[in-house]
C-alpha cells in the first residue's frame, strides 16, 4: 500500500488500527477485511492493540519468520489467534467495550458460516478454521465438542494471557508453531514449475503471451487496478509494438493512439521549428486534446487506444469506488484555497451613496450636502493568475494511473470552485514525439470524461514538454502563470541528444544531461515570468536532481494521494506571494 495510498475502505480500516494503537504514521502489516471486503472492526482493533502492546518490531520479526513459506497463510492465521488472545487480555480491563466487540465478532463468525458455498468450504484451511471456530465458541461460552484431544490442547495453548511481554509472546508463539505445526524456523517454499523456451518458439510466445515490460522505446501500457495481492502487485499486461523508423508511420501511430493534433500541420511544423532545437533537435511535438483520429489505419495503435479506453474505465471506476474519500479531499482543498484567497485579497472601500454607513463621514451630509457617507467594498477581485498542472504521463507512473487521474480531477474541481483558471495536461515521449495531452483547458468545466483520459506510457522528455507548455502559456490571456509539475525529477527519453558544437558525440537524454536540460528550461520559463513549482514523488536519490531543476520550489510527497493537497500548498504560496 505504499506509493499509491489507501482506498476509502482501506483507509477506514487503517484508521481503526491507528486509533487503538494510539499512534499514527506507521503502515500496518495486516489490515482485516471480512468476506464482503468491508473492514473487520474487531480484528482491526486487535491489530492496533498488538502494535500498542508489543510494538512494530515484534510484529515484523514474528511474521518475517515464515514469510514465503508454503504454509504462510496458516501460520499467519494461527499467530493472529494467539495475538488476539494476548492483546485482548492486556487491553480488556482498560477498555470495557472490547468484550462486547469480541462477542459480536464471534457471533459474526458463525453467522457467516451459513453463507458459505460448498467451494468456499472446500477451499478453506481446515486446521485454521477448527482453531478459529474453537476460539469463537469459547468467546460465546459454548463448548467445542468436535475437537480431538490434541486440537483441544492446541486451542487452549493459543489462548495466551496478559502475562507476556513482546519478547516472551514472540517466543511462545514460535514454540507453539514448532510443537503443533512442526515449523522449525526454516522456510520451505512451494517448488514452482518452469518451462524454458528458446529460439523461434520463444519469439512467437513473446508476441502471444502477456508479459511485463518497464521501459522501452516501444509503448508499454500496464493496468494498475488493485488486486487482492495489493495495489502494487497489480497484474499487468504489457504490449509491444514494433518500432518503425518511417516518420509517417510514427506520426499515424501517435495520432491513432493519442488523438488528432490540436494544431494544423503548418502551425505544428512552425512550433517544432522554433522549439525542437538544441538538445531536442530532431524531436517532434504532438499536442492533442484527445479527438479520435480520422482514419485509424494502424491496427497496433488502435489496439493500444482500446487499452487506453480501458484505463479510462478503470480511472472512472476507482473514482466512483472511492468517491467519499475523494470528495472529502476536494472539499478540504477548496476550503483551504478559498480561505487563502479570502485572507489575502485586497478589499478596497470607497465612499459611496449606498453601502454601509460610515460614521466618520455622516457629518458631511448636513453640513456639506455630501451624500457619499456610505462605504462600499469593491467587488471581490478575481485571482490574477492561472494554474497549469502538468502531469508526468510516462511509464514510471504506471502503478498510479487511477490515483493521478482522480487527484487531477480534485485539483481542477477545487480551483474551479475558487474561480482560479486551471489547465491540466499530461506529457510523455514516444518514438521521438513528445506528446502533450490536454485533459482540461482553462475555460472548460472540470469534466471527469476528460480528466479520466489520463494514462501513462513511454518516456518523459521534460525539457521539451516544458518548452511546449511555455509556448502555450504565451497564447493564454492571463498575465501570471503558476506551472505545477508532477515529476520524479528523472527526465529520460530514448531519442538521444544530437551532437552539437560543444559536444561532438550524441548523448542519452537522461541522467545528468536530462536534468541539466530540464533545469535550463525551468530557468527559461522563470525568466519569462512564469512561476514554476513541482510536486516531487520519487526516491531519496532523486532529491538532488529535483533541487537542481526546481531550486527550493518543490514539495515532496510520499504517496500519490497527497498530490492535490501538495499542489494546493504551492497554490497558497502563490496567492500569498501575489498579495505582497
Amino acid at each position: 500500500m505504499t506509493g499509491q495510498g489507501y482506498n476509502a475502505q482501506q483507509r477506514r480500516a487503517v484508521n481503526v488500527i491507528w486509533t487503538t494503537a494510539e499512534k499514527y504514521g506507521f503502515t500496518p502489516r495486516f489490515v482485516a477485511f471480512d468476506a464482503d471486503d468491508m473492514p473487520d472492526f474487531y480484528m482491526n482493533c486487535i491489530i492496533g492493540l498488538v502494535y500498542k502492546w508489543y510494538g512494530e518490531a515484534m510484529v515484523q520479526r514474528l511474521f518475517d519468520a515464515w514469510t514465503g513459506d508454503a504454509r504462510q497463510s496458516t501460520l499467519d492465521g494461527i499467530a493472529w489467534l494467539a495475538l488476539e488472545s494476548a492483546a485482548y487480555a492486556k487491553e480488556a480491563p482498560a477498555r470495557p467495550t472490547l468484550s462486547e466487540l469480541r462477542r459480536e465478532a464471534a457471533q459474526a463468525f458463525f453467522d457467516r458460516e451459513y453463507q458459505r458455498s460448498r467451494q468456499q468450504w472446500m477451499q478453506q484451511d481446515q486446521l485454521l478454521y477448527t482453531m478459529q471456530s474453537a476460539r469463537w465458541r469459547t468467546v460465546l461460552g459454548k463448548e467445542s465438542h468436535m475437537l480431538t484431544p490434541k486440537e483441544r490442547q492446541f486451542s487452549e495453548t493459543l489462548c495466551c494471557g496478559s502475562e507476556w511481554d513482546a519478547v516472551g509472546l514472540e517466543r511462545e508463539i514460535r514454540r507453539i508453531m514448532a510443537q503443533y505445526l512442526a515449523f522449525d524456523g526454516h522456510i520451505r517454499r512451494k517448488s514452482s514449475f518452469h518451462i524454458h523456451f528458446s529460439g523461434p518458439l520463444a519469439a512467437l510466445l513473446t508476441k502471444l503471451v502477456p508479459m511485463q515490460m518497464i521501459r522501452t522505446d516501444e509503448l508499454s501500457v500496464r493496468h494498475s487496478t488493485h488486486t487482492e495481492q495489493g495495489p502494487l502487485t497489480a497484474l499487468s499486461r504489457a504490449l509491444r509494438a514494433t518500432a518503425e523508423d518511417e516518420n509517417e508511420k510514427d506520426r499515424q501511430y501517435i495520432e491513432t493512439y493519442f488523438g488528432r493534433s490540436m494544431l494544423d500541420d503548418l502551425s505544428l511544423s512552425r512550433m517544432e521549428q522554433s522549439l525542437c532545437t538544441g538538445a531536442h533537435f530532431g524531436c517532434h511535438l504532438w499536442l492533442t486534446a484527445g479527438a479520435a483520429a480520422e482514419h485509424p489505419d494502424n491496427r497496433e495503435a488502435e489496439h493500444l487506444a482500446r487499452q487506453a479506453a480501458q484505463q479510462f474505465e478503470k480511472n472512472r471506476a476507482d473514482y466512483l469506488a472511492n468517491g467519499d474519500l475523494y470528495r472529502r479531499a476536494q472539499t478540504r482543498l477548496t476550503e483551504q484555497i478559498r480561505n487563502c484567497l479570502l485572507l489575502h485579497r485586497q478589499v478596497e472601500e470607497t465612499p459611496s451613496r449606498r453601502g454601509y454607513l460610515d460614521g466618520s463621514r455622516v457629518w458631511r451630509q448636513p453640513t456639506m450636502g455630501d451624500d457619499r457617507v456610505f462605504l462600499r467594498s469593491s467587488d471581490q477581485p478575481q485571482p490574477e493568475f492561472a494554474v497549469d498542472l502538468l502531469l508526468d504521463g510516462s511509464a514510471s507512473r504506471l502503478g498510479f494511473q487511477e490515483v493521478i487521474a482522480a487527484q487531477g480531477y480534485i485539483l481542477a474541481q477545487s480551483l474551479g470552485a475558487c474561480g482560479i483558471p486551471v489547465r491540466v495536461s499530461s506529457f510523455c515521449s514516444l518514438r521521438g514525439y513528445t506528446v502533450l495531452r490536454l485533459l482540461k483547458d482553462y475555460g472548460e468545466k472540470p469534466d471527469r470524461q476528460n480528466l479520466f483520459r489520463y494514462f501513462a506510457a513511454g518516456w518523459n522528455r521534460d525539457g521539451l514538454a516544458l518548452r511546449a507548455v511555455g509556448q502555450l502559456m504565451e497564447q493564454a490571456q492571463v498575465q501570471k502563470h503558476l506551472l505545477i509539475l508532477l515529476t520524479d525529477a528523472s527526465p529520460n527519453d530514448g531519442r538521444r541528444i544530437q551532437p552539437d558544437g560543444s559536444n561532438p558525440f550524441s548523448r542519452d537524454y537522461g541522467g545528468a544531461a536530462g536534468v541539466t536540460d530540464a533545469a535550463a528550461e525551468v530557468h527559461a520559463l522563470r525568466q519569462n515570468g512564469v512561476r514554476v513549482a513541482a510536486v516531487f514523488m520519487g526516491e531519496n536519490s532523486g532529491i538532488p536532481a529535483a533541487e537542481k531543476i526546481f531550486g527550493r520550489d518543490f514539495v515532496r510527497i510520499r504517496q500519490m494521494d497527497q498530490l492535490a493537497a501538495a499542489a494546493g500548498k504551492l497554490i497558497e504560496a502563490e496567492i500569498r506571494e501575489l498579495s505582497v
Partner: protein
Amino acid sequence: MFSLLEEDQISKGLLSDIRAFQENHPVPELLAPRIPVPHYVYYGREVWEDAVSAMLCGENLLLVGSKATGKNVLAENLASIFGRPAWNVSFHVNMDASTLIGMDTFEGGQVTFRPGPIYRCAQYGGFGILDEINMAKNEALAVLHAALDFRRSIDVPGYDRIAVDSATRFIATMNYGYAGTRELNEALTSRFAVIRMPTISPENLEKLLKKEFPALNKKYTDQFSFLFLDLQKKCESAEISERALDLRGLLDALRLMQRGLEANRALDMGITNKVFDTYERGLIRDVIAARIPARLETAALFPSV
C-alpha cells in the same frame, strides 16, 4: 477560584500576589458585572503559573493552541481571579482599527467619539480578551502596538491621547489551524508573552469530567476522557478535521446521556453530526465504537441518578 487553584498546587506566593493586585486595583461598582464568573475552570498547574506570573509582571499574553486546549477558559479565568472587568473582542477578517478603538458618531447633532472595547479596557483597567487575534489583518492590528508596548497609550486621531491604566492587560488567543487564520507579524508577536497551550492531559480531562458530572461511573469517566484524546490524536494526524474535536460537544453529549439519551445518539448529536462529511463521520463513529459500547444506557453511566 482561589480554592481550586490551591487544590491544583499553584504556588502560594503567586496566589498572595494576585490578592495584593486585587486590593491595589479596586473595581468601580458600575463595572463589577463585567468581571467574568467562569463556568469552567482551566486545569494545568504550569500554564497557570506561567500566565499569572506574566500578568503580575504587566505583560500581555498570547495563548497559542489548537482547538479545545482551553485558551478562552484560561483567559476568562485570569480576568476572574484578578477580579478585572473583561472586554471580549472576537476578531474577524474585516476587523479594522475603528472597531477596536472607536469611531465617530452623531450625538445631539454633533459628531462625537464613541469608544471601542480596547479604548474602554485601557480607560478602566480592564482585561481585553482578543479572541482569535490572527483572524484580523495585520494592518488593522497596528493600532494596538502602542497600547501593548512600553508606551502604554492609545492616540486616537483627531482626539486625545489616553494612557493605558496600570491594571489593564490584553490576553490574545490564536489557533493556526482554523479557517481564516494567518500568522501574526513579528511586530505584534513581540509585544506578547506567548504561552503554547498544551492539549488537555488525561488527568485534567478526568478532573473536568468529575467536576461536571460527579455521578458519572468512574469506569466511563476514563472512557470518555480517552475517547476525547483518541479524537485529538486523529485530528493531529489530519485524519479528521477539528470540527469533531469539541470538548463542549462531549460535555453536552454527557448531559444528554444524563437526561436519558442512549450514549451513541448523544455522541452523534454532540460530536459526530458536527462533521458534514459522511466519510469522516464514519471514522469518528469508529473511534467512538472502539471506546463506548453501542447500547450504553443512563443506568450504567450514572448509577446513582
